[in-house]
């Protein structure tokens, strides 16, 4: 009876052991890094939309206010997406035959809503309210980035719990004067009231903003 194992079996056994160890190590590295890099959160990914809407053109170019389309942002948790009718207030007059806008015209004609792909989302166990943030001096660009520089919209901030807590722990420096809320390019300057002054002005800090129940209700 011949040898059960050929000479190359030693090599094979070592390679198998090394390979298993390598796979395990790679798995651990992936498990640790995947949730910690922005790739997993689709940061700065542009998403294809039924109409390639340009915030850059409409906001920076034409000077349309955020609230013209996102009408509910001051009163509701939901900023609100513009009904097709809002688009057509202008586009029934200009670019009336543009093929890019065909889905909008079709939507109004058929009474079927446009279906946009989400770029910013929070898990269902998070309660977020736009109106209170607007009312308390947090500007759009604090969470949405410089939307007026986005030819196609993308997610500009991670919107993780860490991101929320960074501000909730110390909101003062992010608060803006009321007339700067919708200014996408706002930066804190020497003329800006101090964080303490703004915190007092908006009555922020009555509740502990890092309480679990503030966001997880």
């Amino acid at each position: 009876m011949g040898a059960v194992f050929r000479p190359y079996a030693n090599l094979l056994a070592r390679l198998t052991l090394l390979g298993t160890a390598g796979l395990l190590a790679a798995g651990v590295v992936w498990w640790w890094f995947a949730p910690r890099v922005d790739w997993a959160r689709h940061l700065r990914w542009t998403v294809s939309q039924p109409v390639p809407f340009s915030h850059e053109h409409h906001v920076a170019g034409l000077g349309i206010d955020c609230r013209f389309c996102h009408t509910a942002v001051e009163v509701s948790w939901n900023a609100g997406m513009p009904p097709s009718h809002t688009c057509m207030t202008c586009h029934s007059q200009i670019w009336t035959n543009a093929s890019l806008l065909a889905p909008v015209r079709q939507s109004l004609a058929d009474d079927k809503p446009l279906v946009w792909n989400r770029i910013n989302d929070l898990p269902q166990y998070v309660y977020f309210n736009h109106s209170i943030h607007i009312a308390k001096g947090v500007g759009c660009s604090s969470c949405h980035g410089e939307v007026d520089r986005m030819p196609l919209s993308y997610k500009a901030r991670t919107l993780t719990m860490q991101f929320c807590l960074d501000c909730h722990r110390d909101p003062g420096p992010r608060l803006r004067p009321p007339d700067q809320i919708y200014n996408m390019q706002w930066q804190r300057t020497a003329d800006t009231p101090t964080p303490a002054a703004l915190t007092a002005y908006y009555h922020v800090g009555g509740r502990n903003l890092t309480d679990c129940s503030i966001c997880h209700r």
Partner: protein
Amino acid sequence: MTRQWRSLDQLAEDPSFLARAAQEFPGLAESLAQPSDRRRVLKLMAAAFAMGGLTGCDAGSPGGHLIPAVRQPPSIVPGLVRWSESMVRVAPTVLLKEPPAITFASPKSRILAWPRLVTKMFAGLMSR
């Protein structure tokens, strides 16, 4: 006593529908009847069940859709309730005449905030 039903066909007691519903898995009935196929079907169902758990592994990355209205009635604000149960209890007759524009409650769950719009949107999607 309220009667519970899962579809209009069931409510109407349509005999062809009732026969179909009695099979529990109408789409699989043929496969389940053959013993050789039966194992495979059960395997696939087990696999589907196991993989269903994977959908829970979502880190809140973007996905899904935003569906605005086509023409938004001025009395509806996205995200705010127009009706809540307590309102109906207090003054049902008043509400039947004219729904108030103000809201008394802000629900914690988002899906509850849009009873009418959500229904409309689903209807719109399903009719596509």
